[in-house]
């Protein structure tokens, strides 16, 4: 059953360079085409890679909501990087939140330098499962690497998002967004990434 809330509050998070912005635009764009109000708030600054990036996506049939949702009010968190998933769960989750997350870590500088620890993946999964209503973990980076297109990880994740059935969006809705956003010669690969993501949660 898809989430029926209005406004529907989605968090899409990851690190710079993972394609977070494209993803939030596709989800927001697909809902807009269905006659909804879509508002997306984005936190990114420098063009620099590896910084935390998140989008607050708000969908409603009633009115235009502000780009930032109140804390603790996310219905769904889609994480492209597991530590960033955790960060968003900490701030925006509630007992009804569903969560779909990639499991491939992008290690932050403090961890690289051995000043901080990256959470143990089993503990991380356990924590997210404890705090959210329903959780899917997807090895989207490995799937994308298998397709020889690490850049398509975000599309694998949107496939997983569709596969969970939590949104009312269809594969065709997202394919239309892909056609709007990508050059024609990249479409076949991205349709495949989409299908692989869907399969990963089925």
């Amino acid at each position, binding site marked *: 059953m898809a989430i029926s809330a209005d406004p529907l509050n989605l968090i899409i998070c990851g*690190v710079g360079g993972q394609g977070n912005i494209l993803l*939030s*635009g596709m989800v*927001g*764009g697909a809902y*807009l085409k269905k006659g909804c*109000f*879509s*508002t*997306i*708030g*984005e936190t*990114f*600054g*420098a*063009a*620099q*890679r*590896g*910084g*935390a990036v998140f989008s607050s996506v708000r969908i409603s049939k009633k*009115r*235009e*909501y*502000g*780009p*930032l*949702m*109140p*804390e*603790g*009010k996310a219905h769904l968190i889609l994480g492209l990087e597991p*530590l*960033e998933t*955790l*960060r968003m769960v*900490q701030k925006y989750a*509630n*007992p009804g939140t569903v969560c779909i997350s990639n499991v491939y870590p*992008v*290690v*932050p*500088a*403090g*961890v*690289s*330098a*051995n000043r*901080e*620890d*990256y*959470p143990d993946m089993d*503990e*991380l999964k356990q*924590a997210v499962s404890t*705090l959210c209503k329903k959780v899917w973990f997807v090895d989207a*980076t490995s799937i994308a690497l298998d397709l020889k297109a*690490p850049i398509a990880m975000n599309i694998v994740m949107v496939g997983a998002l569709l596969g969970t059935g939590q949104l009312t969006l269809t594969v065709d809705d997202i394919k239309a967004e892909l056609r*709007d*956003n990508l050059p024609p010669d990249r479409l076949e690969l991205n349709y495949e990434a989409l299908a692989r993501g869907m399969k990963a949660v089925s």
Partner: protein
Amino acid sequence: MPSVVQLVNGSPYLLQGNEAIARGALEAGVQYCAAYPGTPSTEILTTLAGVARDAGLHAEWSSNEKVATEAALAAAYAGLRTISSMKNAGLNVAMDTLQHINLATLGDQHGAMLVVVADDPQSHASGDEEDTRWVAQMANAPLMEPSSFQEAYEMTKYLFDLSEEFQIFCWLRDYTRLAHARGKVTVGEYKKATRKAKFDRTKMFTPYIAPPKHAILVEKMAKIRERFEVSPFNSYEGPAKPELLIICSGSGAPCSRDAIEELKLGRKVGILKLGTLWPFPSRLVVSHMKKAKRVLVVEEVDPYVETHAKAAMADARLADAPEILGRGSGHISYVGENNPDRVIAALCKIFDITYSARTPEYQAKVEEVLGKMVASRGLTWCPGCPHRASFYAIKNAIKRDGRNAVVTSDIGCYTMDAFPDGPQVTNVLHCMGGGLGEGCGFGQLQQFGFEQPVISICGDSTFFHASITPLVNALYNKSNMVAVILDNSITAMTGFQPHAGSGRTATQESTETVSAEALCRTLGCRVEVVDAFDTKAATAKLMELMKDEQGVKVLILRRKCELLRMRQEKTHPYKVWVDAEKCKGDKCGFCYRILQCPGVAYDKQSGKARIQEALCAHCGLCADLCPNKAIVKEERA
């Protein structure tokens, strides 16, 4: 997505605030567009430059915001509609020109000019939280602030017409949560603008003599004030007699709506949303304030509306004046950006409501389960970034020189040196051009017993923006300093915009490449150029220049931005790996702790350094510098 000129009249699109402004400008017939990149304003010009050929526009990245404003002004004098866009800090650079324009006027009923200033509450990508709205008042420019994407588009069109009617430039306030957010915009008709540029030789535009011109401007502003009193961009929503009236502008409107809905206060609280901020629509505001016992002002960042509302209330001399709450009363912080939670907190205080987004039990569980699990992710240079090598060399040179050199730095990706995850070589850091300007001062303190060498850093785009003038000053006034230009060939931090030294324009045409080194040599500086990745040579050269006591020395550390190089060449230069047998792990930690490259990390399992394949640029810098020769770089076949 179709390009911004291909959008269909009457159709809704998901547009970024900056794109909505660009579309509004195109529909209004803009023909001349000039800007200097600055987050969060950059995409206005990027969008316009992207359609410049189809739309017959001139779109340029100017050397700085002042030049952009002057260039746009000239085009307005020649009868065109023009736009100049900038970030908050950019306004400070352009202000000298803006302060004069409306005294001088734009001409006689042709030509229009819109200035868009994008503020950055919360300083997501700025040095401060400057609220530029005060300054529109100082410059006598009509100011509007959109609170939705649709309004950003509509206000842009409206302000071009207002500018042309009154022959003064108008001001649109943009801000991060509009500029870098996306929402629904239903667009109107776009027609390619075809005005010809022509200047009437019999005219003169100057603020001199100011007082009589000022009087004319005051009259114009009084007329505009009357328009704004009844403008449809100001609107009220809520009960006829609210217990509390929220007066808001910009992002205050959606945040207030969301907070009222969250607390179910729709029957008690009304919202007066202001779109016209200068001249301030005092009568309208008083007429609404009369109906309520209390007023809360929600805006960002400073109490601008709050101050004007209080002044309007004083003028109105109401017997039963409401209490005006906001920054002054402590209900809303002076610091940071708007969000629904801060309005929720203010409303809870006013109505004595207890609210928590999550139950205390769940909140406790979040804290218990997550504990210290959520590691921080600070900002740092990308793997492969030449600045990492440059600062390593600068730090080494200062250490080996041993005289406690003072480092003044500037605004760009290299600013991250001063951030918590950076090497923190910088001592003084303010604004564009500030590094060399402050260097001028430090370099002239010898007569007061100052013996430390002075290193002043700027980037290539920053050099052209505001560093040439201080360099001239340093030469003229015999300052002793080493100016280090970190030349990565692009304005990287804002997203790879070309500049005077890049050899191509905003519209990707090839053009004259202005050489920073030739310019510095012509001025009379000793100039040395070193590859930023040749850290040994860079260190030695910098030490040599620091010892050369007299005059201004320039060291250019040159290497292309890695993200740009990767975009162009699409392949890593080397294959880099760690030889685990030679790696001494945490006993050394040079690559991940000293060099702090995210492309290589400490691996807990093996106790050694490990390449992070998802991030590593395979640039070979760590391999060149590894004290144990444990990192190998191999040429790609």
